[in-house]
């Protein structure tokens, strides 16, 4: 790959900020615009920027495909797990009222966990799909 020094140095400054902003969008979604989906996409964009500038092989060492696969399923399972936890606590599927002693606290907890599940899945899916596209035609996994 041709060495792109200036974009690489700049991206090293930018990527942590992009990921931090993704976390802000994730956990501030209750109060401002944003939420799990947007946060996941921004985090995935950070991973893709890293891949574009440092190459697929190095990106796969940092964000291991096997770990990303676990996160792809893990986010969906976290979402469904919150729903099942509500059933076991005596409510309906995805009825967050029963998750804590106080219905409002239960709603807060449920929304936080559910959005986290969406964020994890979306970020991992975006990175995985890009890795698949970028790695198409290569023999290595």
């Amino acid at each position: 790959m041709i060495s792109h020094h200036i974009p690489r140095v700049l991206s090293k400054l930018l990527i942590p900020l992009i990921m931090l902003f993704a976390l802000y969008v994730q956990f501030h979604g209750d109060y401002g615009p944003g939420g799990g989906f947007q946060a996941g996409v921004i985090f995935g964009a950070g991973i893709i920027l890293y891949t574009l500038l440092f190459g697929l092989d190095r990106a796969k060492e940092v964000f291991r495909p096997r770990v990303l696969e676990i996160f792809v399923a893990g986010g969906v399972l976290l979402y469904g797990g919150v729903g099942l936890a509500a059933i076991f606590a005596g409510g309906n599927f995805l009825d967050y009222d029963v998750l804590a002693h106080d219905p409002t606290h239960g709603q807060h907890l449920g929304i936080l966990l559910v959005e986290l599940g969406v964020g994890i899945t979306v970020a991992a899916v975006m990175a995985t799909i890009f890795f698949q596209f970028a790695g198409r035609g290569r023999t290595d996994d």
Partner: protein
Amino acid sequence: MLDIVHLVLFTFLAVIAVAIIRLKDLFAAVMLMGIFSLLSASLFTVMDAVDVAFTEAAVGAGISTILMLATLALTDSKEHPEHNRFQAMPLIAVVLTGAALVYATFDMPRYGDPDAPIHQHVAPRYIEDPGDEIDVPNMVTAVLASYRGYDTWGETTVIFTACVGVMLLLGGHAIVERFRRRKTPVSDGDA
């Protein structure tokens, strides 16, 4: 003032849409589609739909442009039309459908009309009650994650399914290899 902003944005959208159709260079078309998404995001912002604008800017202008470019890298960045002669039937079909859609918009309530049917059903409860029921300041999050939690659950599984589909289509060979290596215990290099 706001009408002028709407008018300018919609004009740009129409111009870019026509340009995308007429372009034969797919690379330029992908770039224009990114600009189209960014303009749509501005339009959503002007319409006070900040959450949707956020998603449109991140997904439409960002990720889909990257994925389209990655697809072009795998295939071909030039369009090769089978025939260039003018065809009347597709044009008639498109014009008729478009006219029917425009005609249908005359029956729709005006943009932002508080008496519109959509604002009579459950919307008042979503707007007035979250303070007591959910206590989340962002109404959109309250609707998406709690009131409409089933739909968001469905959307998340759709994204998951899309990822599995891409992995099977593009990386199927690698997955088969991985299982083959796992089945044969004696092999060079661990799995």
